C-alpha cells in the first residue's frame, strides 16, 4: 500500500500532463494544474511515519521513501509549486499555447516531487533528468529570440550536468559493488573522479560558481511563475543531491568542504556585485538566487569540514533552503504583479508591503525566516575552531547579508521604475493576489511554524530571532545604497551584460564554428563521373582490341605451340 502512496505523488501530475497533452483543446483539466502539487503537500505533512517502499519490478528495483530532510524539502517544493501554479493559472489565461505550458509545468512538477522521494540512484536520476528537460519547455515558452538563446544554454548545461551525474553514479555504484541505494553510496564514501563528477553534476543545477551563467539568462526569459519555481524549488534539487550523496558522516571530507565553502562565499559576493549592476528586476533576483545558493553551499562545505557539528549545520542548510525558496518565490511573483498595481492607498500599501517583506526576510531582518536561517547557520560557528582563512567564514557570512540588502534595494528600485509606465490598473485578480500574499506571508509565518513543530531540545536556539549580527549588515547595506544612488548618474542602464561568463564563451563558440566552416575544402577525391566513365570506356576499348588480337588465327596457332613448349619445359625442368 505504501508503494502506491509514494508512487502517487509524482504520478498524479504526470497523468494530468498526459491528459492535457492528449486533449489540448478541452480546457476542463487546466483548472486542476496547481492542485497537482497537493498530494506532495499531504505527503510532506503526514509522510513522516510511512516507511519506504521497494519496487523491484520497476527500473532495477527502485526505492521510494521520505526522511525528515526529504520532508522539509517536500514541504517547500509542493507549497511553492502550489502557489506558483495558482499564479500561473491566471497569468497564462489568454496565452494561446497555455496547454503546452501546463504540460511542461506538470512534467517538471512530477520530476521535482519524484526526486525528493527517490531513495535509490536510478529513480533519483530519472526524476532529476525529467525535471531538467521539462524545465527547458518552460524557459523557451515565450518563443522570443532571447528565450531561445537562454533555453539553448540552459539545455546544454542541463544535459552536461545530467551526463556528469550519470558518470558519477556509475563510478559510485561500482564502488558500492552494485548496491544502488543513495544511502549505500554515501556510506561507501565515493572519492576521486566519482566524487568530483557528482559534486559538479549537482553544482550545475545548484548554480555553483563557474557554471552558474545559465540562471541569469533563464529567469528573465521564462514566464514569471516558471522562474519562481525554477529559482525557488528546482535549484534546491542540487542541494538535496549533495545532502544525499556526499560523505556527510563522522569523518567528513575536509578538502571538499573547504572548496565548497570557498566557492560558496565567492558566489555570494560576486553574484551580489553582478546583480547590483543589472537593471531588469528578474535578472537581479536571479543573481540574488546565485548569491543565496552560495551561502547554502558554504553551509554544506562547513558540514563536511566540521563533522561533529553536522546535524546542526544540516538543519541550518535545510532551513536556509526553505526560507530562500519561499522568499525568492514571493519576490518573483512580485516582479510579475507590476501590472496589478492598485490605485488606492490601502491596496497600494499592501502591494508595497508584500514586495518589501520577502526582500527584508532575505536580507535577514530579525523576526523573519531570514533571521532564523542565518542564526541557526552562524550559531555553531562561534565555538568551532576553524584553521587559517576558514576562521573568517562567520564574518563573511554576516557580511554577505549586506550584499543581499544592497541587492534588494536595487531590485525594489528597478521594480518601482518598471511600474511607472503602467496606467489604468485592471481589475484585481484574486487568485494571483492570494498566491503572492501567501508566499510573502510565509517568510513571517515560517519561523513561528518552525518553532512550533521543531523538537523541544533545540528550542533555545530557535528563540534567538534577533541579534546584532543580523542588524548591522542591513544598516551597512542601506548606507551603501544611498551612496550609490547619489553618485551613480544614470541608474537605468545595465553596467554588465546579463549572464557575465556566457558572453566570452559564446564568442569563442561562434569563432570556432566560423573557423571550421572556412577550412579549405578537402581536395575531394570525389567521383568525377565524367572522368570515371571515360576511363571505363578506354578500358573496354583496349580489352576488346586485346581479345580481337587474341582471336586472330595465327595467334591461336602460336599460343598452341607456345603452350606445348611451356608444358614440356616445366615437365622436363621439374
Amino acid at each position: 500500500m505504501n508503494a502506491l502512496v509514494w508512487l502517487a505523488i509524482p504520478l498524479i501530475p504526470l497523468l494530468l500532463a498526459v491528459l492535457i497533452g492528449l486533449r489540448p483543446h478541452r480546457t476542463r483539466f487546466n483548472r486542476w494544474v496547481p492542485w497537482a502539487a497537493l498530494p506532495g503537500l499531504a505527503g510532506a505533512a503526514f509522510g513522516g511515519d510511512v516507511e519506504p517502499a521497494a519496487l523491484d519490478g520497476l527500473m532495477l528495483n527502485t526505492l521510494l521513501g521520505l526522511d525528515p530532510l526529504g520532508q522539509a524539502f517536500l514541504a517547500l517544493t509542493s507549497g511553492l509549486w502550489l502557489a506558483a501554479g495558482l499564479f500561473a493559472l491566471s497569468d497564462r489565461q489568454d496565452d494561446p499555447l497555455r496547454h503546452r505550458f501546463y504540460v511542461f509545468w506538470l512534467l517538471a512538477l512530477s520530476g521535482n516531487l519524484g526526486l525528493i522521494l527517490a531513495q535509490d540512484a536510478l529513480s533519483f536520476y530519472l526524476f532529476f533528468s525529467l525535471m531538467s528537460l521539462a524545465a527547458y519547455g518552460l524557459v523557451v515558452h515565450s518563443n522570443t529570440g532571447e528565450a531561445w538563446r537562454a533555453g539553448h544554454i540552459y539545455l546544454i548545461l542541463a544535459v552536461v550536468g545530467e551526463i556528469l551525474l550519470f558518470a558519477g553514479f556509475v563510478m559510485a555504484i561500482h564502488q558500492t559493488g552494485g548496491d544502488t541505494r543513495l544511502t549505500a553510496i554515501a556510506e561507501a564514501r565515493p572519492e576521486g573522479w566519482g566524487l568530483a563528477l557528482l559534486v559538479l553534476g549537482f553544482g550545475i543545477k545548484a548554480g555553483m560558481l563557474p557554471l552558474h551563467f545559465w540562471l541569469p539568462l533563464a529567469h528573465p526569459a521564462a514566464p514569471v511563475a516558471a522562474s519562481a519555481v525554477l529559482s525557488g524549488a528546482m535549484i534546491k534539487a542540487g542541494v538535496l543531491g549533495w545532502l544525499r550523496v556526499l560523505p556527510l558522516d563522522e569523518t567528513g571530507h575536509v578538502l571538499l568542504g573547504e572548496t565548497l565553502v570557498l566557492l560558496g562565499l565567492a558566489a555570494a559576493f560576486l553574484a551580489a556585485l553582478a546583480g547590483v549592476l543589472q537593471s531588469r528586476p528578474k535578472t537581479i533576483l536571479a543573481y540574488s538566487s546565485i548569491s543565496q545558493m552560495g551561502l547554502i553551499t558554504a553551509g554544506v562545505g562547513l558540514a563536511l569540514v566540521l563533522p561533529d557539528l553536522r546535524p546542526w549545520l544540516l538543519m541550518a542548510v535545510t532551513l536556509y533552503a526553505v526560507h530562500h525558496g519561499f522568499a525568492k518565490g514571493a519576490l518573483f511573483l512580485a516582479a510579475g504583479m507590476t501590472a496589478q498595481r492598485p490605485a488606492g492607498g490601502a491596496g497600494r500599501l499592501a502591494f508595497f508591503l508584500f514586495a518589501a517583506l520577502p526582500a527584508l526576510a532575505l536580507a535577514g531582518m530579525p523576526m523573519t525566516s531570514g533571521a532564523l536561517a542565518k542564526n541557526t547557520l552562524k550559531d555553531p560557528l562561534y565555538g568551532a575552531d576553524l584553521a587559517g582563512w576558514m576562521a573568517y567564514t562567520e564574518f563573511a557570512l554576516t557580511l554577505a547579508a549586506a550584499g543581499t540588502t544592497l541587492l534588494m534595494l536595487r531590485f525594489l528600485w528597478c521594480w518601482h521604475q518598471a511600474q511607472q509606465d503602467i496606467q489604468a490598473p485592471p481589475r484585481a485578480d484574486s487568485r494571483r493576489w492570494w498566491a503572492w500574499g501567501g508566499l510573502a506571508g510565509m517568510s513571517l509565518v515560517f519561523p513561528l511554524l518552525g518553532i512550533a513543530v521543531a523538537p523541544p531540545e533545540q528550542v533555545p536556539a530557535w528563540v534567538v530571532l534577533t541579534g546584532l549580527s543580523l542588524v548591522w549588515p542591513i544598516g551597512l547595506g542601506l548606507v551603501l545604497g544611498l551612496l550609490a544612488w547619489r553618485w551613480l548618474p544614470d541608474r537605468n542602464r545595465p553596467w554588465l551584460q546579463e549572464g557575465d561568463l556566457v558572453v566570452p564563451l559564446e564568442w569563442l563558440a561562434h569563432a570556432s564554428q566560423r573557423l571550421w566552416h572556412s577550412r579549405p575544402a578537402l581536395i575531394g577525391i570525389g567521383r568525377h563521373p565524367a572522368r570515371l566513365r571515360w576511363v571505363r570506356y578506354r578500358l573496354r576499348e583496349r580489352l576488346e582490341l586485346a581479345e580481337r588480337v587474341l582471336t586472330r588465327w595465327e595467334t591461336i596457332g602460336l599460343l598452341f605451340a607456345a603452350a606445348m613448349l611451356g608444358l614440356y619445359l616445366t615437365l622436363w625442368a621439374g
Partner: protein
Amino acid sequence: MEWLAQQLAPGLIYPTAGALLFALGLYGLIRRHHLVLRILALNIMGSGVFMVLLGIAARGEGAPDPVAQALTLTGIVVAVSATAFALALVVRLARITGQAMMLPGPPDDEAPVDDISREEHAPSAEYEREHRE
C-alpha cells in the same frame, strides 16, 4: 654401311618423316590465312601422324602390326569426313561473307542475331524461287 642401313630402317625413317610432316602442317596452319589452305595443312598433319603410326607398325622383322594399320584406316576415313564437312562449311561461309577468310574478333555486339527459334522457314517452293532468281 651396315650400321647406317640398320639405322635407316623403315621403322625409324618413316616415323621421323611423319613427325616432320606434322611440324610442316603445323607451320602451314599457323602461317596461311585461306581456309582451304588451312584444311590442306590439317590433312598433311594427319598424314604425318599416320606415317608415324605405320612406321611404328612396320618396325621389327615380322609382319607389320595389323592393329596399327586398322587404326590408320579408321584415321583416314575420319580425316576425309572432317575435311568434307570443313569444305562444306567454307562454302557456306563464302556464300555469306563473300570471302573464305576467318572473321577475326569476338562476336561484335551490334551483329544482327537472328535466333532460329523465331525463324519460320519459307515453304520449299518459295525457297526454290528465291534460289533460282
